[in-house]
């Protein structure tokens, strides 16, 4: 077999030195919780993103955890993760001078990205329609919990309430329905909206390249979650069936067998579709033999029968009682092995024998997995201010000619004030804190 070449090596020039696919696009992002992920996606793909914060820094700088567990505006790891590769400036949008500078900044850029409460910019004298009328090529992206219009546009929301109201929570939890359903961590409401915002932005860029015209993009977090639950949505759309949550596996209209197993070391593995080919059953027999567990596994003979008859097929299920027994024995053999080996050995052992299996990693365990290390997924980012090099999760998608990269750590409050705002009005803004609208420091 000729293995696929590493896309990162497919080019003769050093890809690390090449600009990202969005190189040349200028983005002004108003700092927010909801649009930060979209901004990071664009920035790490090479767009020039200017992050605009209020004096003293945006409120999300107070979201923990913090480096060394010490709170501080430059120490929020949420901020670090969401704002790589961006430049930071401070504008006081509660003052006419700050609003005026934002207008100038926006008129020079390709894309405005904001996650403000609908209507709040207009209340501060920032009229999106007027700005877009004056700059017809501008693309303006708004991310909000329930869209820019409608009866719920002003409703308060958090990740938890969006995930509960938008569909995910109903699908997640345990077989025991006296336990509440579960919201998964990670800020997925904003992550879902973020990738949709970034993708729709590029649709608009492609259109602008051919037409010269920009447009407004309304991104709805609630709607995003609603179209992210697979069968949870289309069992109802198509057949008016309601799925029910189950432990560690798909919510389902009819109950399905457990797939998540506790391994010998207390870690968990998750199984794929049960074995059905003769090769699969032979692999189970071989491994049971290697572990000296062949005699201890009660349904050993069923696995041997499966090999002799050349495996089983799904259509035979329910038709031939012995096929059902073999099918169940395959699953039972996997569970039996899992109970006798550590989770990692179970995961690798099944996969290396061609049987589908996964391991339930804690997020922090991904970074030390030799596979992801070999692929260069953990990437070093310099934090010279702290005298540290910090390892970040790397590329979500890998481009062979225009690589994804973290260009820099997240910006400090007002870090790029002079270089970004200076060209707009060098006399007024080159010096930090000169006019009232641009001070990087909190008022008073």
């Amino acid at each position, binding site marked *: 077999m*000729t293995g696929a070449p590493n896309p990162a090596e497919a080019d003769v020039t050093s890809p690390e030195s090449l600009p990202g696919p969005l190189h040349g696009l200028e983005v002004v992002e108003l700092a927010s919780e909801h649009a930060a992920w979209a901004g990071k996606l664009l920035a790490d793909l090479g767009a020039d993103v200017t992050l605009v914060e209020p004096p003293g820094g945006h409120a999300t700088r107070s979201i923990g955890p913090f480096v060394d567990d010490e709170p501080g505006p430059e120490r929020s790891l949420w901020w670090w993760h969401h704002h790589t590769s961006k430049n930071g400036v401070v504008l006081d949008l509660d003052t006419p001078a700050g609003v005026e500078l934002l207008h100038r900044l926006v008129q020079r850029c390709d894309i405005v990205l904001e996650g403000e409460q609908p209507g709040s910019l207009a209340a501060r004298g920032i009229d999106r329609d007027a700005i877009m009328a004056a700059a017809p090529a501008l693309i303006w992206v708004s991310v909000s919990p329930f869209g820019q219009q409608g009866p719920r546009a002003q409703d308060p929301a958090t990740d938890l309430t969006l995930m509960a109201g938008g569909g995910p929570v109903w699908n997640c939890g345990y077989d025991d329905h006296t336990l509440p359903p579960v919201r998964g961590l990670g800020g997925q409401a904003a992550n879902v909206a973020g990738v949709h915002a970034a993708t729709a932005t590029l649709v608009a860029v492609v259109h602008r390249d051919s037409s010269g015209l920009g447009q407004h993009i309304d991104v709805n977090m609630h709607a995003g979650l609603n179209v992210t639950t697979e069968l949870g949505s289309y069992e109802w759309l198509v057949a008016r069936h309601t799925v029910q949550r189950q432990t560690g596996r798909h919510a389902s209209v009819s109950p399905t067998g457990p797939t998540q197993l506790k391994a010998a070391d207390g870690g968990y593995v998750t199984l794929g579709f049960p074995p059905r080919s003769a090769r699969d059953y032979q692999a189970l027999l071989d491994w049971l033999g290697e572990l000296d567990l062949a005699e201890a596994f009660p349904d050993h003979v069923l696995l041997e029968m499966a090999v002799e008859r050349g495996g089983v097929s799904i259509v035979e299920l329910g038709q031939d009682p012995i096929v059902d027994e073999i099918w169940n024995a395959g699953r039972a053999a996997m569970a039996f092995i899992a109970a006798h080996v550590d989770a990692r050995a179970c995961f690798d052992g099944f996969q290396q024998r061609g049987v589908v299996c996964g391991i339930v990693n804690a997020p922090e365990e991904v970074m030390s997995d030799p596979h992801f290390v070999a692929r260069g997924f953990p990437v070093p980012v310099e934090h010279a201010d702290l005298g540290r090099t910090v390892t970040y999760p790397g590329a979500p998608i890998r481009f062979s000619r225009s690589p994804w990269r973290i260009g820099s750590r997240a910006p400090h409050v007002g870090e790029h004030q002079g270089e970004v705002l200076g060209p707009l009005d060098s006399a007024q803004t080159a010096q930090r804190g000169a006019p009232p609208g641009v001070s990087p420091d909190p008022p008073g």
Partner: protein
Amino acid sequence: MTATATAEGDRPAAALAGIRVCDLSGQLAGAGATRYLAAFGAEVIRVEDPTNKGGWDIIRGATPFVDDRRGVDLGGGFNNHNVGKWGVTLNLRTAEGKEMLAALIRTSDVVTENFAAGVFARMGFSYDVLCELRPDIIYVSNCGFGQTGPKRDYKTWGPIVQACSGLTFNSALAGHEPAGWGYSYMDHMGANYMALAVLAAIVHRNRTGEGQWVDISCTETGATLTGTDILDFGVNQRAPRRAGTVDSNRSAYPAMAPHGIYPAAGEDAWVAVACRDESDWAACRSVISEEWADAENFAHLEGRLAHQDELDRHLAGWTRGRDRFEVARLLLAAGVPAAAVAMPEDRIDHDQVTADWGLWPTVHHTLMGDVRVEGLPVHLSRTDWVVDRGAPCLGEHNAQIFGGRLGLTPDELADLAERGVL
């Protein structure tokens, strides 16, 4: 606003008109990406294997169904994931089938697939071959562990990707095993990132004339979605956690209490409540209007976090006898984030936001008739999406595509079909 238009004249301009996608992808992690491109006007041609009736895509003939009919053209999920595409069949085990695929690729901007790593190259279509067919081709491959690395041959599906990436671990109640995600979240997100990859590569090509290969490992994509945790454990050198320690209905970051999912009146009925700050808690207290809420222990966030089990028991006592929608309505009216845990029927048939958005458009499928599907959570003011045509039946557009694009005559097509090439 609705994005569903019936007459050509009502259609918004198509941003991706003229973009041709030769799509070998399937399931949801691949099909969901090209669905997105089709919704904005790209011409997506789905190429499937006639020898197993498109069975590589296990969703093709899978539940749900609109009626009692069954078969590879009747899967409701397949219809949902493949709206707006054209469908052709090619037997890529035959030389003629490979030649016809090569001819399609020569006239395509983009090739997409989500086979296991290396499979498409073994069929004879490595990136180098694709470049010979079309020098500026954009090739996007998507699989669980990516095209390189020691685990490239590991087989995955959504739940395996979620487990390996850390997402499953991060969805749990304290003292319990991981609950995980009750659906293939990473098939949806893998598809969304794959669409992003295609579009970023198109933007790059439009500026430079260069195509490229984009390699997506869905597990890596998933790991970026828990990135703050990864930074925390790396920077602060914490020991990796064990299962049973996560309580994901609570919020440590940002710190909030009360913050949880509480029982409501009725069977398996729940309501989510989140107090972001002291002002939310004061508003929540005034809605609850019970003595326990004024206890000194709960007066400040630190106390509420320190006594969160007790706080949650009290709050659950208040919510338990009340309708979940009524609890949410009362709290929202007071400015406190709250939401009934929505069942599918709630959010699809009785939700003003999704209805006004046009989130559930109806498409026409050749055999299934009119069926509701998922729309997109974005609206573009000039070039909005259109979702109105159902998924293709197996080989439904062979004559149209091979006749139009490749110039084959009906007789030639009949002969190819006869010989098992189509």
